[in-house]
């Protein structure tokens, strides 16, 4: 069977490379019974559309970021809470263990089987005006955020002016001053060329959002148990490879933006940023009391 797979990134991106390895491995271990293919560059649609395609079985597998997943699987909104993970390493521990299993369960109710967890690094603020050392430095600056209430609340809580905007508009808007900044990880900051116009990157690590390598539940049902185990192994291997490639890509991107004259700084007091999030957590838990335990489980992970 051909398994059509969806990827948002270009072929040479860590995620896509790891997906291709997964595809090759699965074809090998199932002796060609299953032949995954990768449709890169998001040519089969945006992520919200692709999620529906996986849920309906039109696509067999995909690599999804958990950010936009919140609209379909509310539990995954927890992963969009600012500073939910201390660092990327803790995120790996949590997602590879019991916490990850809780998210897998929630996803499978929506028809998506998560096989392993990819890395998308950690997101920080960058802008065209000045280095940000404390929340006070963000006062009045216009930051582009993705379309999600949590991200808007986050920037507002830090004193900035949250401006939801389509990704493709960001470069010109930074260049012309429609917005002052945005937030992303190093590889995207670099590949989007935003570093050409935004010369200050301040390491806040406010969002650490994992990604899943997942299979459509309707497709997964038809796979033999032996193949399932082999495919699951291949997915774990792909995640390992993706995380290594990702780390290398982050370093390369960081070097490149620094060489291009971007000033990268650590913030003076990370706790000041984190404590500003208290009302957001309170609101979130008030709206989703059932998710409070999951948040505590994440925070309790080593």
């Amino acid at each position, binding site marked *: 069977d051909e398994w*059509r797979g969806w990827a948002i990134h*270009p*072929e*040479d*991106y860590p995620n896509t490379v790891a997906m291709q390895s997964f595809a090759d491995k699965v074809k090998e271990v199932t002796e060609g019974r299953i032949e995954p293919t990768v*449709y*890169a*560059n*998001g*040519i*089969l*649609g*945006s992520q*919200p*559309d692709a999620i*529906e*395609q996986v849920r*309906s*079985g*039109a696509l067999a597998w995909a690599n999804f970021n958990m950010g936009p997943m919140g609209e379909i699987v509310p539990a995954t909104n927890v992963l969009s809470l600012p500073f939910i993970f201390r660092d990327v390493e803790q995120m790996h521990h949590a997602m590879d263990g019991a916490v990850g299993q809780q998210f897998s369960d929630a996803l499978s109710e929506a028809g998506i089987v998560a096989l392993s967890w990819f890395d998308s690094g950690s997101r920080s603020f960058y802008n065209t005006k000045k280095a940000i050392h404390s929340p006070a430095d963000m006062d009045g600056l216009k930051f582009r955020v993705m379309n999600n209430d949590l991200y808007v609340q986050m920037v507002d809580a830090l004193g900035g002016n949250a401006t939801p*905007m*389509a990704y*493709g*508009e960001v*470069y*010109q*808007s930074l*260049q*012309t*001053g*429609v917005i002052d900044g945005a937030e992303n990880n190093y590889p995207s900051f*670099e*590949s*989007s*060329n935003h570093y*050409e116009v935004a010369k200050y990157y301040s390491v806040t690590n406010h969002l650490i959002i994992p990604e899943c390598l997942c299979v459509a539940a309707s497709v997964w049902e038809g796979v033999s148990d032996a193949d399932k185990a082999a495919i699951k192994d291949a997915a774990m291997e792909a995640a390992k490879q993706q995380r290594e490639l990702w780390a290398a890509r982050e370093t390369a991107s960081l070097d490149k933006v620094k060489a291009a004259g971007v000033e990268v700084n650590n913030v003076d007091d990370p706790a000041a940023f984190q404590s500003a999030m208290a009302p957001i957590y309170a609101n979130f838990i008030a709206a989703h009391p059932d998710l409070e335990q999951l948040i505590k489980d994440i925070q309790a992970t080593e």
Partner: protein
Amino acid sequence: MGLAVLFGIFGFGLFCGMPVAFALGLAAVGGFFYEGLPLFIGFQRILSGVSVFSLLAIPFFIFAGELMMQGGIANRLVRLAASAVGSLRGGLGVVNVLSSMLFGGISGSAVADTSALGSILIPVMKDKGYDPDYAVNVTVTSSVAGVVIPPSHNMILYAVAAGGMSVSKLFIAGIVPGVLMCLCLAIVAYWVAVRRGYPAETFPGFKALGIATLVALPGLMTAVIIVGGVLSGVMTVTESGAFGAIWAILVTTFVYRELTWPAFKNAVLTSVRTTALVMMLVATASAFSYMLALYRVPELLGNFVTGISDNPIIILLLINLILLVLGMIMDMAALILICTPIFLPVAVSLGMDPIQFGVILMMNLGLGLCTPPVGACLFVGCVVGKVRIEQAVKTIMPFYLAILVALMLVTYVPAFSMTLPGLME
């Protein structure tokens, strides 16, 4: 086989005279049935094809153009243009090309360029005795400048798809090829105008020119607001489109006092109709494009090209040919994302700079916007000019040739695209 279903339905529908948008949609439905895919996926594509932020500029420019027409801005602009270069034979054709160069350099969208300039210039050209097909041809082909001359969001899309290149260099690289293209078009516009014996007005003198300038100034401010808004960084392109429309309402109501309530209502309803026709095409074309992507049509073509020859001149020609064909039947943004990863490595292996390839891609796919059966600019131009597509296409060949000449020059002479970016270093 699936491809046969797809193109069979599309072709048969077109042949029977079905609306293009509906033929594209029905063909996609056929493809989804044939592949056993859930049908709602296709209709989800249709919905999300329309829900794209950068497309919002389209209704704004269409509406601003309608207001400029209904409220008397256009007449005054054209009176100005006619006093300046009208003494040239077929002067309005050349004015059309030049204004596209400036206007498209602001809007970044060839379709918006066609609708805005077309709704102003085509009716005036017709009034002055120009044939409707000529007016549409000039408007449509010169609007491609909007894609090539910066700013251009299609170029940003290309930079992202190419995996990290300097957008500012890419922007600068587009200037000379864009101007070159307009030059070729202006020559053709002049030549055709002479052959058809279009009128040349007498030069009215500098005093009259001065008065025409003063009178047109508040209207010209609409363009200044749009350019200034973007360049000064106060607004995005989409927002400046909205402000251009708001400004046009104010000027035509309070300065020119020509925008009556019936004229305003008419402008709104006409804008809605034009917008809906264009957007419906964008919508169903995105479902159709989904099937093409699923069948990996562009990739098959990529392998085909490299299998044919190892002569750089021939391969570049082939790439251009394939892009031209794809540009005829597919949406530009989707093609940029799909074709860049396929053809860029081939071009780079021939020693071509990715920036030069980006400019070639813009010009080539831009030409696709002017060609049937799927050419958004051509459609808009025909709607605005109230000309049937077949009537416009019958005489458009010299204008295609002008763009092709520019495309060939940019393809085989790197200096056209690479000199300015080279100066940056």
